[in-house]
């Protein structure tokens, strides 16, 4: 066993995740800008990035908080967005099965789309890697960039005039994630239906439009899958 965690496997994780930072850094900046826009201060913005640490749900929650939506709607929407991590947790769990309870609890906190995707690909390709070290290298790097980006976004968001519409970067970030998520017919139908229903339902009370749109999109995807098979 190496006497330091800064070994080859950890550094490989750091190295492999670095190209992704070009997408993560602006995403984190937007999270900070959106926090200011929702009326939050630096402490709340950083608190959210540390405690929640899941970008898409943070941006959705901030948007709803800014619109004074009921807390149940804010929480419900964010949780639906983060449900996808149930799949990542299940998929990566066998790789961590031999580790102690404490280490697994720590690794779980750092689970993100990017850390998951990068790690399982590497574990398949390179079975000799120390799993937790490689994953930690990638996931902790993402965590650090996410926190720094949030702080920078709060500072930037407070200094740029509203007319520039910096919060428009929020839907743009989601758009960049949405396009690759619509990869076949059922997922495309899920996206089109979810978006269309959300637009029509935008006037619903309690800001329920997003949640209703998302649930209709999921149902539409399932129906398409069933009718196609």
């Amino acid at each position, binding site marked *: 066993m190496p006497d330091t965690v800064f070994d080859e496997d950890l550094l490989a994780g750091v190295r492999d995740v670095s190209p992704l930072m*070009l997408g993560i850094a602006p995403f984190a900046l937007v999270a900070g800008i959106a926090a200011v826009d929702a009326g939050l201060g630096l402490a709340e913005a950083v608190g959210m990035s540390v*405690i929640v640490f*899941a970008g898409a749900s943070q941006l959705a929650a901030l948007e709803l908080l800014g619109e004074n939506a009921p807390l149940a709607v804010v929480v419900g929407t964010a949780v639906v967005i983060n449900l996808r991590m149930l799949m990542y*947790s299940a998929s990566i769990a066998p790789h961590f*099965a031999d580790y102690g309870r404490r280490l697994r609890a720590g690794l779980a906190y750092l689970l993100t789309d990017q850390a998951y995707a990068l790690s399982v690909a590497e574990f398949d390709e390179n079975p000799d890697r120390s799993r937790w070290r490689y994953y930690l290298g990638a996931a902790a790097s993402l965590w650090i960039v996410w926190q720094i980006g949030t702080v920078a976004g709060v500072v930037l968001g407070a200094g740029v005039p509203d007319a520039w519409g910096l919060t428009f970067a929020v839907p743009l970030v*989601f758009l960049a994630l949405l396009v690759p998520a619509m990869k076949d017919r059922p997922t495309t139908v899920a996206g089109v239906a*979810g978006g269309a229903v959300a637009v029509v339902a935008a006037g619903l009370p309690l800001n329920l439009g997003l949640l209703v749109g998302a649930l209709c*999109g999921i149902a539409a995807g399932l129906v398409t899958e069933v009718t196609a098979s």
Partner: protein
Amino acid sequence: MTDALAGVVASPRAWVAIVVIGVVTYGIRLSFIHLFGRIDGVPTRVQRPLRYVPPAVLAALVLPDLVTLRPSVAATLLDERLIAGAVAGAVAWRTENVFATIATGMATLWLFRFVVFA
């Protein structure tokens, strides 16, 4: 005065949301990593709908920020946000690059807001 008051009132609300979302999200992350060995994996009945969560949720987040239904079709379509979103969507499709998508989307928004429609 009103702003300062709003900040004080908004703050505990925001913290409650942050903590509850954080705790539930951590539970989601930990779920199978913690349980592994006791159960075999996600049941198919749960796994199937989860596949559609990302496209459905992301589209429901994006589209209402780009489109506002107005009385006429022209008024709905001739919206700087929708035009910028369409350009950014094309860039996202071609490049799958978050940075390029944000950059072209913002540039298009500013072009139409400050030049074309100004």
